[in-house]
């Protein structure tokens, strides 16, 4: 059974047209992450939530926003997508307790910007 579900799997948008990607989890994990991954690159952390506590990375552009209305759901909003924002967006969760920090990823949302 899928535990971290991302929608849509594929999203095509036009330059400057806002996009929202969603992530839901059935693991009841405290922490939810959004990563951006471009071809042949490492996942790049955009931000994460520990429960309702939002943690932005210093180099995440303002163009990227996030919402976590409840434990199960998290959204990534890209307010004005540019060509450089075309990437795979990965949602992940972790328990947030203990020391291991193993991540559970969704299948990703592939964003194309025309």
């Amino acid at each position, binding site marked *: 059974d899928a535990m971290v579900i991302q929608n849509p799997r594929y999203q095509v948008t036009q330059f400057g047209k806002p996009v929202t990607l969603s992530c839901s989890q059935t693991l009841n994990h405290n*922490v939810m992450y959004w990563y951006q991954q471009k071809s042949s690159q490492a*996942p790049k952390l955009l931000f994460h939530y520990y429960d309702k506590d939002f943690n932005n990375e210093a180099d995440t552009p303002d163009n990227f926003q996030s919402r976590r209305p409840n434990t199960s759901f998290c959204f990534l909003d890209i307010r004005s997508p540019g060509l450089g924002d075309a990437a795979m967006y990965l949602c992940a969760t*972790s328990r947030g307790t*203990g*020391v*291991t920090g*193993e*991540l559970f*990823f969704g299948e*990703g949302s592939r964003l194309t910007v025309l």
Partner: protein
Amino acid sequence: SQKIEQNSEALNIQEGKTATLTCNYTNYSPAYLQWYRQDPGRGPVFLLLIRENEKEKRKERLKVTFDTTLKQSLFHITASQPADSATYLCARDAGNNRKLIWGLGTSLAVNP
């Protein structure tokens, strides 16, 4: 700052052989290292974690080692199969419980 370096060149091996992938880290020793598998167009999947005080960890055909002297982790797949073909990512803790520092990954191709 901490970094993770993995072999940038793709690794091609014959089915049945052991694949060995390398992960080197800089600066202080991480509390743990994690290994993930990523198939094209999909999210990474967690495979193994090894802690600083562990020398070796095994799971079925997978084995991970951690050498704090060499600042290196090795990831082995024994009796490799074409289905093992994927990119393997190494990640270390960033000094807290919630973030990871990732390598670029090593692409493995197992030829029948």
